[in-house]
């Protein structure tokens, strides 16, 4: 049986316009496609990734327009649709004033206190 992996994503908006996505959300999708049993945990400022309505459109450098800005909330939804469970640390969301109602459907809250129990469920824990 394959290894169960928890991907923890802590830093949000790192080169997301240059990449037109988030590299760890992208990698998580690739891992899933390659058959890895992967779950995603959003914490610290990356909890904002689960917020609906993010809009990075409208940038232009010289005459070159950023035609395909990142759509992080849609990427989170796509991961969920692909069968990747997505958790977020509820304490970090509260700290940032993010209400549950603002989040994409399907992401699961977990408190800081319960994180050790979550980590225990996985063979590998990767912090990105």
């Amino acid at each position, binding site marked *: 049986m*394959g*290894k169960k*992996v928890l991907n923890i994503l802590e*830093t949000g908006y*790192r080169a997301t316009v240059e*990449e037109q996505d988030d*590299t760890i959300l992208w*990698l998580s999708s*690739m*891992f899933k496609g*390659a*058959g*890895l049993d992967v779950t995603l945990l959003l914490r610290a400022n990356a909890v904002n990734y689960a917020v609906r309505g993010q809009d990075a459109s409208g940038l232009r450098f010289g005459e070159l327009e950023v035609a395909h800005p990142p759509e992080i909330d849609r990427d989170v939804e796509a991961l969920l649709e692909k069968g990747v469970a997505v958790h977020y640390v509820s304490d970090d969301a509260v700290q940032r004033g993010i209400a549950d109602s603002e989040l994409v459907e399907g992401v699961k809250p977990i408190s800081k206190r319960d994180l050790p129990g979550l980590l225990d469920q996985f063979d*590998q824990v*990767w*912090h*990105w």
Partner: protein
Amino acid sequence: MATITIALMDPPYETETTTTAFRIIDAAVRKGHSVNVFAYEGAVNLTMADQAPHPDPVKGTSVEEQDHPTTKDWIAAMFKAADGRLDWVNCGLCVDERGAGNWIEGPRRGAPKDFVEWVEASDQTLVIPTK
């Protein structure tokens, strides 16, 4: 002896993490372990063959006096010392977007699926993130 897979993200000359990663890789191969390195994002720049040392105008030293290996030199030295127990994959799409395709002998082009295969086959996987 173990097989250890390590994922790197940082480009050269930006963080201390690169040095620590090299210390781990070097120590692991010297101890007889096998090491797989998956270079993702900026880490694909670590192996660029076109890296060149430079003189130091602050210290007033020439290139020769500086005697300053670049990261590709450290990696080449580790490949030599590892004697077949170091495998290095540069993530291909990361290479393309950075124009980092001209690398030293040793590393090869790959993809996330190579990392997944290593993960399943390795005794340990260490992900060293960027900040």
